């Protein structure tokens, strides 16, 4: 089980690099979403290793709140970029 935990921690690095160097803002958003998924897996495995069942509640709430935050960032960024594109055309 600790091997899985270590691999998940190692997977945080390439997605973090994608967040850092991503050429556009959408790459950064994608990397943030993937990091949230990895963190959910880390919480589940931690709950399984330490046999604390109540940590799964946190994983569920974590998933929902993190995804809703990402959804709103994407929606409002698209609105802003469309306005900026219209200004450039004018």
């Amino acid at each position: 089980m600790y091997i899985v935990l270590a691999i998940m921690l190692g997977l945080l690095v390439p997605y973090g690099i994608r967040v850092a160097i991503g050429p556009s803002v959408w790459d950064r958003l994608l990397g943030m979403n993937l990091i949230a998924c990895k963190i959910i897996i880390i919480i589940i495995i931690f709950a399984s290793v330490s046999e604390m069942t109540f940590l799964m509640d946190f994983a569920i709430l974590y998933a929902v709140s993190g995804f809703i935050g990402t959804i709103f960032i994407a929606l409002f960024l698209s609105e802003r970029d469309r306005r900026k594109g219209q200004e450039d055309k004018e």
Partner: protein
Amino acid sequence: MSVQEIVSFIIMGIGIAFMLVGIIGMFQPKKDFYYRLLVACKIDTIGLLTIGIGLAIRHGFSFFTGKIILIIIIIMVLNPLVAHIIAQAAYRSGYVSICKDGDSFDH
């Protein structure tokens, strides 16, 4: 080790293999954002589902398994939804692909 643990480790290994393959897709040179999104989100959802199923098999019929099934349902609904919304927002904002003459919507 019992048979249950071996089966669960094999299934989790498959999930980890999916995720490691996903990294190759994330760092392909000369591919644009939509390619990366197409690869990464599918692979990620599959990996999370597989690891969840492996953990459920490991714990047998218990309270933990019920919560794992709940989180699998939520992830199965929400993770493709987030990918869909990111792709839709990128398309609507006018981001087409890699712009070679430096005219990308970089923030």
